[in-house]
Structures are given as C-alpha cells and as structure tokens.
C-alpha cells in the first residue's frame, strides 16, 4: 500500500472513530515500535496485543488511545471491585477514618485492575501521571475520605482536557484543600471577626459557653497558611525554577483564603445527595459565599485586600474570583507550559528528555491554551519518543501491571491481593507522603531491596519460564 493509501485509510478510520487528526507520517510500523508504544502508552503488552496493534496500524491505535471515549471498556466494568458507598454522615471520627481506609483500599484495588484490564490504557497512564502530579496522601488526617472522589471527579475527567480546568478541579477538591491545609487558611483579621460574630450569635441564641473548645483543626484556623500557595507554584504549575518569589507565595496564599471545606455537622440528619449543611437544609450562605459539592468559599475568612501575583494586580474587594484569577495567571504562565511539558516528556520519553522535544511540547501547550491531549500527542508521536526504547525503568506499578498482562493469567481475587506487592516494592498506592508525588526516574526505583522484591514477585505471579524473564533485567525497563 502506498504511503498516501495508508494516510487515507487512517483518516477515514480516524474520522469514524473520533475525528482523528493524527497523520501516519513519522510513526514507525515495525514490531519493535509497537512493543515500545505498548510499553510506554500502555502497561505493557498482553499476549496477542502486538499483533493486534500491528493489524490495526500503530498510528490508529495511538489515535484511539488519545480518544478513549470511542473505546469499548465494558469488560473492565465487570471486573471492577465494589467501591464502598460514602455514608450520608459519619457517627464519629473513628467511623470516618474506618470508611476512609476501606475506600482507599478499594480504590487501590481498582487502580491495579484498571492498569491490567482497561482497554483505555493511555487514559490510565495519564490518570496515574496527573494524580501523582497533584499528589495527595491518604495517610494525612481526613484526606482518605475524599481520595476516591478526587481521582474520579477532579483528575480523571480532565486528563485529555484543558490544564486550567484540571487545576481548578484540584484546587477546589476537599482532598487537596485538606492535604495542603488551605481549608485552615484565613485572613488573620477575618478569623477574629468570625469569632466575634460567633460569640454574638451564641449570646443571642442563649447558647452556654460560646468559648467551649472547638473541634481540632478549627482552633488552628487563625491565620494565613502558605502550604497550598507554595506547592501550587512549585509543584503544580511554574516549577521550582519558575521565577516566583516568597512574596508571590504569600500573595497567592492570601488570594486563596476562604477556600475551604464545608463543615460537616456530624449530628445533623442529612439526606444522601443533599449538600452539606445543618439539618438537611441547604445551608444559608452568607452573601458572596459559594458552595460546590463540599467545596465552600467563605467570604468571612477571605483577605479581600489588593494582591500582586507574578506582576499581575488583583484588585481589592474580590471574593472567590481572587483565587480563580490566580489560577488563570499561573495556568497561562510560560514556566507552567515548560514545567508540564518537561514532566510529561520525562514520563513518556526519558528521565532527562531532549530539550527540543520539551520546547515543542511547551509551545503546543501555549498555542492551545493548555490542551493536554494536544501536548501528549506532540510527545508520543515524536521521533524522540520512538528512539527512546528501553530508556525508562518501570515503576513498581508498571512492573506489576505489565507482569500481570504478560502472563495473560486471570488476576487472583479482585486486585487487593496484589497491593502488598506494591508495598514491598516501595510504592504503596495513594500513600506517597510528600506533595512531590513519586519520583519518576530510574535512581528512585533501582535499589538492592527493590530488585530482590521484584525477583520474588515475578516468581509469585508467573510460571517458571516467564518468572525468569519477568524477574530479569530487560523486563525492568520499558
């Protein structure tokens, strides 16, 4: 078939599938290239995958992976472990914690099942990438209660969308608000005002002892917390060398004061599906207050003074739009385009990705206003991508999922049985403590103890013949 013939067929097929724009030019067709793509864009090949992808054409396969809505994934649905329903209210903190633990376990099992069995492999890779980029840690206080919701509603819907939308979804998620303490951050003067008001209200209602000790955490809500502001700039957007100052961090933190979690009135009867608030009623929100799910903007805690963020002036008198403006500024900052391009290239190409590729991907980010599908496409259809075979060491999750896929065996149990293996290799899911997420370079994952764990796990999940190859050096790379 002529080159033009392939191109024509690709275009027709693509148009049928999802309005493809992916040209076949530059995408190699040999078996090694297909294996490489399956190792990078998927969690490794299953028996027969290489032939199947060769049959449909690699560029077609990549194009389908970039438009996962067109991929039938019903077989996966049947395998997904049951997720515990979040109760309308928790009797006490102990129950909330217990539920959080169950939920994280079920979500971890689901993640492994998805990595092994989903047909939308690139989407699973990207959900993992973006969760790790916007990492939250299940072991910090109440974070675990919201992690499943965070992955499903803040991360997953946006991995092929606009960066700005993804950023806002994480900024408003209870998991992130709690993990990076922004829910506690308040204008110090505003916090005092609020306390006064509460005391007045208590006196008016004749409530005894308005100074009773408040639940833990609330007593700490007395000032500015820079934690989120710092990580937003350093990790989520501009990057550590992105050219911001300590002053910028403080200004950003001021803009996000009042971005908090709607209080859960634990004693109030609350119907499922009814937003948080006292006694099952929609809470009476103060003027300027905003509630979206469990996210709440509380004007009382907000510092409405003027802010200067990275040279942009945010006028005094603002409310929730102060934080939203900051998200606009940082999402469109050129350093962000570069930082995101670098990280994606590091994930898909090599630990130290070629500068020319990072620059092209960053330009695509800027030209498309942060269209993540376009940025990913730029990277995974590049020459640099196809010439980086075997350059990456698999993370423990990639190792485990690719080993399961390589065996072609049915997964024992519902995925939970494999979680211990990830812990033994040093990558317990949703349990990465620092906001940096897990590192994605070889030096992190290659160590004496980790290799021994991989050799043992290989023998646990594969037969004698395959155990040797899965436990061996070539299989540790992708």
């Amino acid at each position, binding site marked *: 078939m002529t080159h033009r013939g392939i191109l024509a067929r690709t275009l027709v097929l693509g148009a049928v599938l999802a309005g493809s724009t992916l040209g076949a030019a530059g995408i190699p067709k040999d078996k090694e290239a297909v294996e490489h793509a399956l190792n990078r864009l998927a969690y490794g090949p299953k028996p027969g995958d290489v032939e199947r992808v060769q049959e449909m054409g690699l560029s077609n396969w990549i194009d389908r992976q970039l438009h996962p809505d067109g991929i039938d994934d019903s077989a996966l649905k049947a395998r997904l472990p049951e997720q515990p329903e979040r109760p309308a209210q928790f009797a006490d903190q102990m129950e909330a914690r217990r539920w959080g633990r169950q939920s994280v376990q079920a979500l971890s099992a689901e993640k492994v099942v998805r990595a092994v069995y989903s047909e939308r492999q690139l989407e699973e890779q990207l959900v993992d990438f973006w969760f790790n980029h916007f990492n939250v840690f299940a072991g910090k206080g109440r974070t675990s209660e919201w992690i499943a919701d965070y992955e499903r509603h803040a991360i997953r819907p946006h991995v092929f969308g606009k960066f700005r939308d993804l950023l806002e979804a994480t900024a408003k998620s209870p998991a992130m608000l709690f993990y990076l303490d922004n829910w506690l951050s308040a204008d110090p003067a505003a916090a005092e005002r609020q306390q006064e008001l509460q005391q007045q209200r208590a006196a008016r209602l004749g409530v005894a002892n308005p100074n009773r000790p408040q639940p833990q955490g609330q007593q700490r809500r007395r000032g500015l917390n820079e934690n989120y502001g710092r990580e937003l700039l350093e990790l989520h957007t501009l990057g550590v060398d992105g050219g911001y100052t300590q002053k910028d961090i403080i200004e950003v933190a001021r803009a996000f004061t009042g971005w908090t979690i709607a209080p859960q009135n634990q004693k109030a009867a609350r119907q499922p599906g009814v937003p948080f608030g006292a006694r099952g009623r929609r809470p009476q929100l103060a003027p300027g207050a905003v509630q979206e799910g469990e996210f709440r903007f509380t004007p009382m805690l907000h510092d409405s003074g003027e802010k200067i963020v990275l040279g942009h002036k945010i006028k005094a008198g603002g409310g929730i739009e102060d934080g939203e403006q900051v998200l606009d500024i940082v999402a469109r900052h050129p350093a962000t385009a570069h930082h995101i391009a670098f990280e994606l290239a590091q994930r898909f190409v090599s630990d130290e990705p070629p500068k020319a590729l990072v620059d092209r991907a960053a330009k695509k980010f800027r030209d498309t206003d942060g269209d993540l599908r376009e940025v990913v496409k730029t990277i995974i259809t590049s020459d640099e991508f196809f010439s980086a075979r075997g350059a990456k060491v698999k993370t423990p999750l990639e190792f485990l999922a690719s080993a399961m896929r390589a065996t072609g065996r049915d997964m024992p149990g519902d995925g939970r049985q494999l979680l211990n293996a990830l812990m033994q290799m040093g990558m317990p899911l949703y349990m990465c403590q620092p906001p*940096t997420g897990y590192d994605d370079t070889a030096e992190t994952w290659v160590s004496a103890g980790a290799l021994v764990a991989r050799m043992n796990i290989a023998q646990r999940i594969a037969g004698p013949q395959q155990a040797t190859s899965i436990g061996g050096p070539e299989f540790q790379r992708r």
Partner: protein
Amino acid sequence: MTSTRRVFMKSGAAAMLSLGFAPGFLTRAAAAADARKRLLIAVFQRGALDGLNMLVPFGEADYYRLRPSIGIARPGRDNGAVDLDGFFGFHPRMAPLKPLWDKGMLAAIHACGSPDSTRSHFDAQDYMESATPGVKSTRDGWLNRYLQAINSTTPLQGVAVTRQTPRTMQGRAATLAFPGVDEFAVRDTMGSARAIEDSYSRTTDSLLSASAREAFQAMGVLQKATAGSYQPANGADYPRTPFGRALQEIARIAKADVGLEVAFAESTGWDTHVNQGSDNGQLAGRLDDLARGLDALTRDLGDRMADTVILTMSEFGRAASENGNGGTDHGHGNAMMLIGGPVNGGRVHGKWPGLAPEQRFESRDLAVTTDFRDVFAEVVTAHLGADRSALPKIIPGYAKPRPLGIIKT
C-alpha cells in the same frame, strides 16, 4: 598492630612529626583502622509521643493541674513515677530502663523539638526525617546524607528494618530496607532464582547489574553471617510485637559483623487523642512495648553497647493539658532518649522551660528549648565520628549546631 598503622610508622612518621601536623592525623587514621564500626540505632515513634507522660516532670506543680485525670502520680505514691533526679521520673512502665539510667548509659533531653510550629504529623515527620524543618523540597533523609558524607561502600552500612525505606534513610547512598533478614532473599518458589540471578550478571544494563550485584552480595553476606535460627544473648526477651521483632533483627545484623553503622526501626500507635490512660491504658501499653524492647536490645547487644547509641525520637509532643476525651492533642516540645556506652547518661539534658501558661508555647504546649538538629549533629559527629566540616552536608541550612554534651568526648 594493623597494617595501616605499620605503614604510617614506616613511611616517615618522624618526618611528618617534625612538620608539626602528624600526631592528630596519625592517631585519627590509626584509630579509624582499629575501630570496630560504631553503631547508631534510630527509633522513630510515629504519631507524636506524649513526652510529658513518658518523662514526667513531677516536680512541676502545673503538671498536675493540667493533667488531673491522666497525670502520673509522684514517686512513692501508688503506681507513681520512677524517680530519676528528684524532678523528672519515668512512667512506671518505663521501669525496665531504670538500670540503664543508674549505670549512666541513658540520657534524656526534654523540651526538644522543631523550630517549625507545625502540628501536622505529616509535615513534622517529614521535617524530622529530612532534618530540614520548614523545607519540604528536601529529597533525602539525614541518615542517608551521613552515609553519603562518609562515602559508604556497602548497603549493609545502613539498614532499616521496615517495609519501605523510611524518609530518614532515603537518598543517593545505597541502603537496605526489609522487615527481617529472612525476607531479604530471593525465594526459589519457581526454581528460577538461579536463572534470574544469572540474567543480571549477563546483562549489559550497568545500572541494573550494579544494583543486582549489590543485592546478591549483601544477601550472601547476610545469609552466611546470620545462618541458623537466631538466639538472643544474655537472656534478652524481646516483646513479641512488630517493634520487638524489628529490634531483634537489628541486633542480629549488628552481631553478624557485616559493617552495620546506621539502623532504623519504628514504633507506632502514639497518637493518643482519646483515652490515653495514666499508669495503665493505651499509652502505658505503648511505653511498655518501647521499654521492654529497648531493654532486650541492650541486653542482647551486651558489650557492643560500648560503641552503640540508641536514639529515640517522635515528630512533636502533645499538648500540656489533657483534652475532654481523656487524651492529649497535638503539641510541640517533646522528650528524646539516648542509650549506650558513649552517652553522657544519668541526666536529663536541655533547659526545662516550665509549664506555667506564659512559659508554654502558644500558651498551650511544652516549649522547645533544644533544636532536634543539635542532637542529630552531636550524634553524627561525637558518636559516629563524622567530621564537623561535613555537617552542612548532613544537616543543610543549619549554620551552627549547638554542642549539648550528651555524647562523652
């Protein structure tokens, strides 16, 4: 006499002497060649230990006012504190450690902690393990940086008896983390262990082959040195708990003489917000595990304790006042302990700030009068023998660690 020393004598020590710089250099080099490895065993109490009930300031009237239901009674009363120096006493369940105090082998530092005021377990553990309070971007831990500074040559120099490499031990220097010696082995469940090992020796992948070589060497050394079932010495009786087992594994590796210098174990369950109890109860149970474990470890190590220091730490202390649930909320200053021959023991070090409202941190917690980095700095220099010039690398961003005198010089 070691060959190193002989070489120095032969190769013109007299000439160097005349230049006036030889003696220090000579003795140091000779001592290094002779010395058995000094050992540091770090114990992390995760969850924030209530130092005020472990090391009780019974001489402080405010203590009893703040803790009417959970306070530990004065020495001499029923289930009272074990008197140490007339002002401080051990929780009664810490009694197994009293003989070490009497022998001058156990020291404590009270009101010790972080310059950062965070009351988040997550942040505070991170800061203590990285030894860079307030700085989150630090990737490696302070014990790993110690191993980097001495250019460690085998991963057996740093072993964490934990499932995952703890933050304290993460970093560029090769270390090992496993829950026990027996788990650190390639099982032959499929008869393919040998073939796997061979595939690593054949590969041209230098990164993987180097790590695998390291692993197989360490494994071989450890297996040979720890063959057979382990029998603790001197009647040491470890508690049959995860913590007790971890300490026993450390003793086993230490006694195998495989070059262990830095070991790490952790103890959990210290986050006592509710019903922590007094002389009995939740906290008492945790202290019992701690004290019996450390007692067994020191007995088992026997005369090796002469060059061993055990250092206990926890991310922050708990509020001075008990809360409405018979527990304590997150606080600030805390107590650390050091046990071993090199320790200037039988003393509670550090300045005691008092517990009166105006003496407390943010009027609620025990204040911090000793930065935990001072303790780390003294342990790595005075005990492990790192050069003071290496301190900026091991504890970055801390200009002048204060000498505390907790390690004998």
